[in-house]
């Protein structure tokens, strides 16, 4: 997910990306290497040894950010078509301390609503308003001038709840509107929705990247290194990652296969996320927001309904009802 953001950042001339992480699996390290090469930018990980909330990690990376130029802060759970250039232009124009990306949503009561005037200057924030006050919410992407670093402290603090209201009161924050799709994909279900949005956006922007043919329905993205067998029906809304193998007669719907996964013949997977290096047996059925962690293997003929399976597990009996398999 984070690489969509890194690529978009590189495209507007960002030359260094800092990932604020609390854990760092090997798979992530491998991706970083290849991504640095590909995009010609520097990627650094800033690792928290204790939880610092959403503001603390920015302070932690102060030495990397304090170069006199504005910097972006992105929430990695967000998927959208980032208008980074628009944010930069607007930020230079208004001269405030921060620019916050906002997006319109149908049910603002679930989110933090942002109220701003015609110039974009933010007046206040209302967290999960029970009554309608506005329908623009914080989209989780910010552009800050380095001067904000003086407002932050190195302890667990929330930038949204503790820092922003104070800055808004001083008239230092501005809102810029996102006009493309937006989704918070922190939860698997939302991830799949985000994937669908991303794919339909991709179809408009880069139709060549979508797979076409009798075995494909709707928006399906297949990595060139993946192998697809005969008599499959894939889609709508599937992503098949690097080095995946999909054997004959497989049916995939609204599903992501992360890199290195093999799905054996005649299996059927819908609305699920299959982790890295997984092996799915023959005649398996997986559905209903199932999430398989890295290196999970599912035996032949098994039924998995709405399970969350932690890495390295072997699933050898049916999981007929939603469960977490530790």
């Amino acid at each position, binding site marked *: 997910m984070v690489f969509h953001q890194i690529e978009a950042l590189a495209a507007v001339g960002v030359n260094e990306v800092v990932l604020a992480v609390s854990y760092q699996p090997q798979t992530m390290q491998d991706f970083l290497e290849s991504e640095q090469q590909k995009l010609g930018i520097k990627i650094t990980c800033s690792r928290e040894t204790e939880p610092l909330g959403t503001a603390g990690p920015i302070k932690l990376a102060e030495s990397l950010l304090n170069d006199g130029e504005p910097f972006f802060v992105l929430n990695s759970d967000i998927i959208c078509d980032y208008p980074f250039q628009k944010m930069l232009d607007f930020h230079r124009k208004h001269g405030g301390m921060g620019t916050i990306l906002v997006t319109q949503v149908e049910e603002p009561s679930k989110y933090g609503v942002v109220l701003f005037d015609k110039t974009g200057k933010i007046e206040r924030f209302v967290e999960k308003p029970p009554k309608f006050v506005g329908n623009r919410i914080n989209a989780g992407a910010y552009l800050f001038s380095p001067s904000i670093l003086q407002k932050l402290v190195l302890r667990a603090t929330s930038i949204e709840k503790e820092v922003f209201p104070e800055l808004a009161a001083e008239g230092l924050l501005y809102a810029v509107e996102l006009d493309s799709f937006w989704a918070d994909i922190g939860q698997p279900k939302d991830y799949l929705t985000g994937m669908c949005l991303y794919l339909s956006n991709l179809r408009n922007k880069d139709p060549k990247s979508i797979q076409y043919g009798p075995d494909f329905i709707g928006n399906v993205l297949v990595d060139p290194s993946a192998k697809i067998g005969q008599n499959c029906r894939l889609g709508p809304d599937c992503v098949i990652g690097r080095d995946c193998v999909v054997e004959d*007669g497989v*049916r995939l*719907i609204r599903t992501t296969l992360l890199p290195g996964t093999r799905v054996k013949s*005649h299996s059927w997977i*819908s609305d699920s996320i299959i982790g890295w290096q997984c092996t799915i047996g*023959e*005649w398996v059925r997986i559905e209903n927001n199932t999430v398989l962690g890295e290196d999970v293997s599912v035996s032949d*003929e098994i039924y998995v309904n709405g399970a969350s399976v932690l890495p390295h597990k072997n699933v050898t009996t049916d999981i007929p009802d939603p469960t977490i398999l530790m």
Partner: protein
Amino acid sequence: MSEEKTQNTVSEFPKTKAVILVGGASKGTRFRPLSLDLPKPLFPLGGKPMIEHHIEACARVPGLMEIILLGFYEESLFTSFLELTSERFGVPIRYLREAKSLGTAGGLSRYSNAILSGNPGAIFVLHCDIGCSFPLVNLLRFHVQKSPEFTILGKVVEPGEARKYGCMVKDPNTCELLHYAEKPSSVVSELINCGVYVISPWILDYIGQIRNGSQSPNRVSFYMNRENDIIRLEQDVIMPLAGKGKIYVYEMDDFWAQVKEPKTALRCSELYLAYYKEHKPELLTTPTTSLRARMDGLLFMRNQKPTVGLQETRLNIVGAVYIHPSAKVESNAKIGPNVTIAAGVEIAAGARLKDCIILEDVNIKEHAFISHSIIGWGSIVDAWTRVQGTAENPTIFGAGVVTEAEIVVRNCTVLPHKTLNESCHQQIIL
């Protein structure tokens, strides 16, 4: 012991007849929805109508004169089956329809003239709703040796199982039946009544005496049923005669199962298939039974080299499987263990079937998965659909059920001619 290997001569045995008690439509309700479209005695187990196993076993008995089916089903339901079967096994078979249920013993007595015509020395009496290896020749030999009035086929089962059936206590030396309890609420014995008997003509006479009142079974339950003229073989005949030197028990180790609900049919079919695998492997379908030959309806005899279709792909078969020669099965479907596929069925490429009974003219589409299920006549299971049950709670489709593609049906009973367009779980679909 396999009966084929023992040398039998006609002179060793008396002339016999066999009576198979088939019951009636009002008795098969626990077998719904499968008994809605076919009388239960004709439901296939191990690839053959339930009752054909009984008939085949009777036909093997030297000196058997005739097989009589006794029940209150409509006669026409059995006509063509009985004609074909009679011809195949070379034994006269007729159906006697009871006007009303007289109980298992009452029916025998009512038709005693027909049963005793031709003077058989002994009569086999078999309940229909059981699956068994039917060691009738050995049973008869035992009967002749012991020469009692009544011989019961018995089997030792798991202690927890026995109470569901008639429980028997026998003399360990003489094998005489000392005590009998029908479905007792406490533990009586692990030796159960298999519902297969040999009786002498005297027993029919004895039942006749109960009917006309000159003989009283001396039991409360008998008098409670008196007004219905119901006389039951187990409670009203076996029970009072136990311990009186008249009844003996022949104990066997072979498989036995009662077929009540659909789930027991699946289990019983499995037992038949396992028995074939051990004793009559030529009845099962093997991976090398060539496809084209099968489609042409030719069956290979053992040791006979197939002459057509050798180049065809092998069937992907696991364990004991019976596929009717007229069924079309694509070579990369995977079938078994414990699967029977009836005539006219089509199984598409990439389908997976295990632990199931597929009835006539069913159509299973590509990549469908079926396990622990019975799929009724002419049903259609569409592509990538998963139909599954468990041994205790199988999925049952009545006739003509149609599923949409890509759904999952688990532990459901579906009545005939329903269309399933969404996934379902633990439902009875009316």
